[in-house]
């Protein structure tokens, strides 16, 4: 009994130290999560749909989540949106029109100049890629709900020669 007691006393500081260290790591991970989902996060974007604003091969941009929370995302801004067709994917597009505005777009820009005009319904935004010839966006799947917007891309950090605001 006394040996057990001694044993416990011997190990107590080490266990205590271990607990406080793991708590510190947990706190750090929490801080990382909160800044990533609520303040600002780096995102790797690639693909042809946002040429020439963003490169084909992959740019790293900073995305902030604050203006989306306060409803301050307007036309002309580059946003990261959860894809309405596959919720596990995100797409980067530019907002063309917000609720209540009407938008005119070419249905098949490569083949003809037939155009459509639609009015964006309440609570939705119309998103389009800068490269209209190779982009899957609102022209195919219609206006997207504002709730799908994850954040606004505002600063490019990679490649180095493109460093600066978007």
């Amino acid at each position, binding site marked *: 009994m006394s040996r057990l007691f001694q044993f416990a006393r011997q190990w107590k500081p080490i266990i205590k130290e271990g607990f406080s260290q793991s708590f510190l790591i*947990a*706190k750090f*991970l*929490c*801080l990382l*999560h*909160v800044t990533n*989902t*609520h303040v600002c996060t780096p995102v790797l974007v690639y693909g042809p749909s946002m040429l020439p604003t963003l490169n084909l091969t992959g740019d790293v941009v900073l995305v902030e989540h604050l203006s989306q929370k306060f*409803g301050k995302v307007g036309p002309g801004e580059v946003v990261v949106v*959860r*894809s*309405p*067709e*596959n*919720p*596990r994917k995100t797409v980067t597009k530019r907002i063309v029109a917000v609720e209540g505005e009407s938008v005119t777009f070419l249905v098949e820009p490569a083949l003809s100049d037939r155009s459509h005009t639609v009015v964006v*319904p*309440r*609570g*939705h935004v119309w998103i389009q890629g800068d490269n209209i010839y190779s982009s899957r966006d609102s022209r195919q799947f219609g206006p*997207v*709900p*504002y*709730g*799908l917007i994850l954040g606004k891309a505002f600063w490019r950090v990679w490649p180095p020669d493109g460093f600066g605001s978007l």
Partner: protein
Amino acid sequence: MGTRNFLWNSAKKFFTIGLIGLTVSDRYFSIVPVRGYSMSPTFNPQISSSTGSLTDDRVLVEKFCLEKYKFSCGDVVVFCSPSNHREMHIKRITALPGDWISTPHSYDAIVVPKGHCWVEGDNSVFSLDSRSFGPIPLGLVHGRVTHIVWPPQRVGKVDKRIPQEHLPF
């Protein structure tokens, strides 16, 4: 000096608690109150006069389903309203991508598009749901309701239920 130290320590403590609470509610589970009668009798079975009273049900929402966005028919989910991103709604999923669904006004059947789902309230008279705004993207879903945690006499699991009229499709 002592008071400043005390203030600094309590501020640090509050900050830590806030961080951990926010992370847990974002990633694992949270508790939300249910307002209105669109899901009666599953939630809020009794009709009370005031909104936001103590007798409103509180439910536990789990977020693990958001890793893969895997849902099944009959799940009760919390989602962001497609017409107003500040509002959250609680409804039951009645159809998943690829399912056929009959629309009430036109006697017409439509297929739920890829990445979308069809949500309906249990109380079809009071409910504003997919029958008025159409299928919603799965990306709007913020979690799955699993348990009722308040009031104490109604604590229990929320069961999966598929409305009878949708079965034979």
